């Protein structure tokens, strides 16, 4: 946007023009020192010409900034001018930023400044002396300045000099040893943080300095307050300070334009809903989701007028959308001879972005609010619809015009935010850990309540009974789900080449229809902030993973993420898991162990993180659970998938009287208890939510020595059980599950160490789940191979026996090259004591065929 047309000589000439200007609309703030936001609008009216113009002498105007810093004035940043000079007057022609400054200086002066439309125009902010009476004329200010009294920018309590000094001190001294922000990666934490960043700027050449407001606050609370309250005045001062500092240090570096300070993470506001009129013109940070971005809007910064008579040209800066068209040519004095030349005017980029409240911040039953955000210059096109972002900016209210041609305004304001800084919150979700970006803030009291709860000995039972209170019993299942909600500790072995270990616990519920599986899923889905609920029947593979879509407007290919990616760091609830098509289910293989999703389609090849826990529910194939069959046979899921579930529970109707009685009591109570009673009895859902969120963010338990011993023992025991009967009863996967469960249990206790009791509970729960799901219905033993290979060891043994018997039978028949299938089957049945089904027979045939002993063609069996 910088226009190269300017010449070094221009400034001088323009200054010569000063006497020709009939008026300058600068005006000291005679209305009082404190200006509510709306007062600043006066500038608009003054340029309208209806207020009496105040003739100012150019001499005073120039003198006043000189008091602060001589180098200052020569800096081309128009926004840094802290004087009462009206920048829209021709006086300042030399200063508008978009022009290359002609002064042959290096350093600050040599680098072109860039306009900051995000800050709006501050040129109507004269300085006033805090200790003297409100000055009535510019002359008075100037003279009082000479006395060395404290000067502040009109309407604020900001003294430019002090403010600058403070900020420079902040930059030079601020150290944040505890910093863990990813922006600071690679920086020495014990050195002044921002000086390192300046160095980075000098190397990289990107003249933007992001400043974390919480750093400013911890360093100098007063400076922070000023920054929040008067960003429009303070940020240019910061800019000024940082540029001075920078060019002092790196006098030879060449930047595209001067460094701009971009503060972020203002602590004041977090939620769009809590914005109120008091926030107008203050710096705020809100979070939200981008829902719409506009086309790029070229916004005129400077109008270029040329006289049609004498070709004399002049530039007029645009002031809040208004161009003060010069009526008279100053060269030839022709009236109304100046015409706007569009392609010599200077424009800046602007984009309107609509941001909607993120769903987590909203009270129930209301619609989300939206806010308009304007991005300027290089912030344009930084965000896309669908992005979740934190925006730092200045909240503005502009009165609506009744008619664009008139200056009358309505009494209703339009509000928007001029953005200073964007911070995407979901970007990292896809590519890394997001430890700090979506940390939920807990108040002290809340943490206290949670800790108190955690210190209770029966916290585990309490929490599990608070989970879905409307669902009766199934204590172990609830406990399992509770542990799933907490999750294990994340371990990173990527350096040793194994990548991440899964920390998420996956659970499968299977059982008779109507045993409130779906209800449990619904509850979990409502409980966790990043839950997704899908039904197996209704979801396709792309719906779960990601799909590529052509954006109808931009014609770009956009990657749309599906349920699994969306529930990254959350829980994906999949109902009717058994009804899922095979291709869809196969997607889950990667997700459930590697926790990533690889996509290769339509020119997009990438790997997305999907660190999601899967909570699935499946119905038996025969609609009723058949206790005579194994889990695999009942739900007909591939064992490869089943083995990825840490816990598989059966939800069956227990059918005994005591249970029925308790169930009946529970249900009747559900129907007549009043709200208060319910609340007394159970933990609040909100507390549970916070408890889980707190534990997930702050507690990272590690195994202690005893616990590891206990785990080893447990694993060895599990292996032993099987080895006695000649089968494998545990795999390393089971050990990993145990570790995860133990860690989750430690999290429930808010403990940083995994102790033996955690391991005990993990073992118990794991055993319970196995007992339910991996019991071989034929022998009554728990047999893990049902889940890992899809067939119990006894079944396999029997298969072999049948095959052997068949072979023997065929051999006994002598040399007959071909046999009838049916006859062979009948013979075998007659010979064997145990009942032999057709399936078994076929399996035996297949086994023999694999041995190359025979082939089956149609109805005949041939020996080879």
């Amino acid at each position: 946007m910088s226009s190269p047309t300017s010449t070094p000589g221009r400034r001088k000439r323009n200054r010569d023009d000063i006497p020709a200007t009939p008026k300058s609309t600068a005006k000291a703030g005679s209305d009082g020192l404190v200006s509510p936001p709306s007062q600043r609008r006066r500038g608009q009216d003054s340029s309208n010409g209806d207020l009496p113009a105040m003739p100012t002498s150019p001499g005073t105007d120039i003198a006043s900034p000189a008091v602060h810093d001589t180098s200052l004035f020569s800096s081309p940043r128009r926004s840094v001018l802290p004087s009462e000079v009206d920048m829209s007057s021709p006086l300042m022609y030399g200063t508008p930023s978009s022009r290359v400054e002609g002064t042959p200086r290096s350093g600050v002066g040599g680098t072109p400044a860039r306009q900051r439309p995000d800050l709006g125009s501050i040129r109507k902010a004269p300085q006033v002396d805090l200790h003297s009476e409100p000055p009535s004329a510019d002359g008075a200010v100037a003279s009082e300045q000479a006395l060395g009294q404290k000067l502040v920018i009109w309407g604020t309590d900001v003294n430019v000099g002090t403010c600058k000094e403070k900020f420079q001190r902040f930059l030079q001294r601020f150290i944040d040893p505890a910093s863990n922000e990813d922006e600071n990666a690679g920086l020495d934490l014990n050195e002044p943080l921002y000086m390192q960043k300046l160095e980075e700027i000098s190397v990289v050449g990107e003249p933007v300095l992001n400043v974390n407001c919480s750093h400013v606050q911890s360093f100098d609370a007063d400076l922070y307050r000023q920054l929040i309250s008067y960003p429009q005045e303070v940020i240019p001062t910061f800019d000024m300070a940082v540029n001075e500092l920078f060019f002092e240090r790196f006098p030879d570096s060449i930047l595209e334009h001067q460094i701009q300070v971009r503060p972020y993470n203002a602590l004041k506001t977090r939620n769009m809903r809590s914005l109120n009129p008091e926030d107008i013109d203050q710096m705020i940070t809100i979070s939200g989701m981008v829902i719409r971005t506009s086309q790029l809007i070229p916004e005129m910064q400077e109008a270029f007028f040329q006289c049609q008579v004498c070709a004399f040209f002049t530039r007029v800066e645009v002031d809040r959308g208004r161009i003060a068209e010069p009526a008279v040519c100053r060269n030839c004095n022709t009236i109304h001879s100046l015409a706007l030349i569009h392609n010599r005017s200077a424009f800046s980029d602007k984009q309107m972005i609509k941001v909607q409240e993120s769903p987590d911040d909203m009270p129930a039953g209301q619609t989300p609010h939206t806010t308009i955000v304007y991005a300027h210059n290089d912030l344009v096109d930084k965000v896309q619809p669908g992005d979740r972002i934190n925006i730092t900016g200045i909240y503005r209210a502009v009165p609506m015009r009744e008619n664009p041609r008139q200056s009358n305004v309505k009494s209703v304001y339009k509000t928007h935010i001029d953005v200073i800084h964007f911070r995407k919150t979901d970007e990292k979700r896809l590519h890394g850990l997001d430890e700090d970006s979506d940390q939920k803030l807990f108040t002290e009291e809340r943490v206290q309540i949670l800790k108190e709860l955690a210190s209770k000995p029966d916290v585990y039972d309490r929490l599990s009974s608070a989970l879905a209170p409307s669902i009766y019993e199934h204590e172990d299942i609830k406990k399992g789900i509770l542990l799933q909600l907490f999750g294990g500790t994340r371990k990173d072995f990527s350096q040793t080449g194994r990548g991440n270990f899964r920390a998420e616990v996956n659970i499968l519920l299977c059982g008779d229809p109507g045993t409130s599986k779906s209800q449990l899923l619904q509850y979990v889905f409502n409980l966790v902030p990043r839950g997704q609920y899908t039904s197996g029947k209704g979801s396709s593979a792309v719906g779960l993973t990601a799909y590529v879509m052509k954006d109808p407007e931009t014609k770009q290919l956009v990657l749309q993420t599906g349920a699994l990616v969306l529930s990254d760091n959350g829980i994906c609830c999949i109902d009717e898991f058994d009804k899922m098509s095979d291709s869809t289910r196969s997607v889950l293989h990667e997700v459930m162990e590697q926790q990533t999703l690889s996509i290769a389609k339509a020119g997009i090849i990438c790997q997305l993180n999907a660190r999601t826990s899967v909570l699935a529910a499946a119905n038996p194939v025969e609609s009723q659970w058949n206790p005579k069959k194994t889990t695999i046979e009942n739900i007909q899921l591939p064992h490869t998938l089943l083995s990825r579930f840490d816990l598989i529970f059966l939800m069956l109707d227990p059918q005994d009287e005591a249970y029925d009685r308790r169930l009946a009591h529970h249900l009747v109570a559900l129907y007549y208890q009043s709200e208060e009673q319910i609340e007394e009895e159970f933990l609040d859902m909100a507390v549970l939510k916070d408890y889980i969120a707190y534990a997930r963010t702050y507690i990272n338990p590690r195994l202690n020595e005893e616990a590891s011993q206990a785990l080893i023992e447990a694993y060895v025991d599990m292996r032993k059980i099987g080895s006695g009967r000649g089968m494998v009863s545990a795999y390393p996967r089971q050990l990993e599950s145990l570790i995860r469960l133990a860690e989750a249990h430690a999290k429930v206790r808010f403990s940083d160490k995994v102790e033996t009791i955690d391991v005990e509970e993990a073992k118990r729960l794991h055993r319970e789940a196995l007992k339910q799901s991996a019991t071989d219905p034929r022998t009554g033993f728990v047999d893990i191979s049902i889940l890992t290979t899809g067939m119990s060891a006894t079944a396999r043994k029997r298969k072999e026996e049948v095959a052997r018997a068949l072979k023997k039978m065929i051999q006994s028949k002598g040399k007959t090259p071909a046999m009838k299938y049916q006859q062979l089957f009948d013979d075998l049945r007659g010979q064997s004591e145990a009942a032999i089904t057709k399936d078994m027979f076929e399996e035996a045939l297949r086994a023999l065929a694999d041995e190359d002993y025979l082939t089956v063609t149609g109805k005949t069996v041939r020996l080879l």
Partner: protein
Amino acid sequence: MRMWFVCRFCCPAAQSNSNPEWEAKVLEYFKGQLKEKESHSWVPSLNDVPLHYLKPNSLVKFRCLVQDMFDPEFYMGVYETVDPSTKFKPRSGSVLRFKFTNTVTAERQTFYCVPIPGESPWAKEISFLSAARVVPSTSYVPSRQKRSYEEDDDMDTQPQKQREPHTEPHGNGDSKRQETEAPSSQTTAPSDCSSHLDLNFPLPGERGPACLVKVYEGLDSFKLNDTLEIYGILSVNPVLTVLGEEKDPSLLLLNPTESMETPEEQRAHDPPASLVPRLHMLYARPLQHNNPLLPSAPTEDQSAFVSSFLVEMASVRAELLAYLTHVLLGDGLAAEYLLLHLISNVYTRRDVLPLGKFTLNLSGCPLNSYTERLYQIVQQLVPCSYRLSMSLHTMNSMRLVPKKDYVANRLVSGALQLARNTSLFLDETQLEQGQLDSSGVRNITALGNLISWQKVDYDFSYHQMEFPCNINVLVTSEGRSLLPSDCQVPLQPQVTPPNMEEYLTTIHMAQFTSQINKFRVYLSLARTLDYSISDEVTKAVEDDFVDMRKDDPQSVTAEDLHRMLVVARLLSLSLGQTTLSRDGWMRAKHIDMLRRSRTEQQKSLNGNEP
């Protein structure tokens, strides 16, 4: 008493020099006045009186549903005007020159309100008649209407904008013609207004005034889909409308304020005031029901009304049952269930589980417009209802779930955005073989969610948002419905009238209006009664359940207990009993047994049904 005054929001100059508490005082005054008996019937209602009969800036009421909530806006609560002797005159619109020193910025929010969707014609009619009885003086003479216009002009110093039509002349003429029609003509062709301006009614074919309600206080107490009776100041000042057409694109560029909104958004948020009037809310009352036959406010006379009606309850129930039995072709059991269904109500939620819902699936319905007739009869009984004929075409093409339109920045309504206790009549007999497309599948899923969880997931394009609802769903089908339901009753007609239509019409005509009115009161009232179960009965129910399970553990499940508890509750309430008695429980068990045996029968008949 004439209740209209110069609106503070339109003409603050009148009050600017009075003491600062005037706002509170004004509100106090109106609330006090409205508490008085009968007083709210003096206020003309936007539902009944056509807009052009109402005086601008007067107090009106509006019975409505909050369809959308717009973003909050800031406005100048207090400001000063420049002395009129300068060249800029202060005007009574909201446009003026101002000095800044005393400006106070305040916040308000705009709600987009529509008349309660699916309000039955009888409810409209009765409330209209009762309103017309008391407010004939304000409006109905056309000459008065003219005068009020003139007054308007006096107040406004910029008359040239005033008269300008805001819509193309053709559309304007249409709406004019419509408005001059008799106000009570509810059955005329669907509104032409919607052709050029989508008023965003949840149900197709609805008409009535939509309103932009400016809410100044208690913003958090209102929720989407609340039904409210709003008392407020009517404002139809055209100046407040942005004149969309006149905008010059070159000016747009220079005026950042103007370019913020897309034309669609402007149309949605700033429709012409003549079509969508503005209402500045003074006071809003949440409505428990919209039955005009019942006293609406929970006051003393309501409880008196209730207790007096309770005496009659049993007899009215018997009559209603007889009536419904006739309607359902002599099937007494189905009639009983239909009655229970009509008074069901989600009274609380336990975590995700809504309690008290009772979705009825009436299977085995005769074809050929029987269901349509049935709906008409239901419509005669309940204050709010909607019949969704589930034909393949409607399922594929209709928008059931509200969706956020980000271009216009508004919530585009769908047929499932309904007020509480609306009867939704799903006519599955209309369904034929064919393929559902993706939107059809979504619609069916939405209906399924509505039935099982009593919630609708509104589509916010990037995410879904769940809104709880309380809708009575009645599904009529030939076989078992493809939608879930709490209870399925196969219809067993005892009579087979040769001419169904005639038969039903005669039944309907045989009822006197007073009788029908009694039914209406009965249904609305039974729903609001409190209910409890004593410990003793609890015990008995538990024992019973255990016994039942002992006999046949396969067929009696927790689900069945759930249903029987709801049936018992509704059965007691329908008899006007507020506690469950042993007897009530036995009865509930009994009718559930009957119903089950009937479905078993059906199953064995059809054989292969799951």
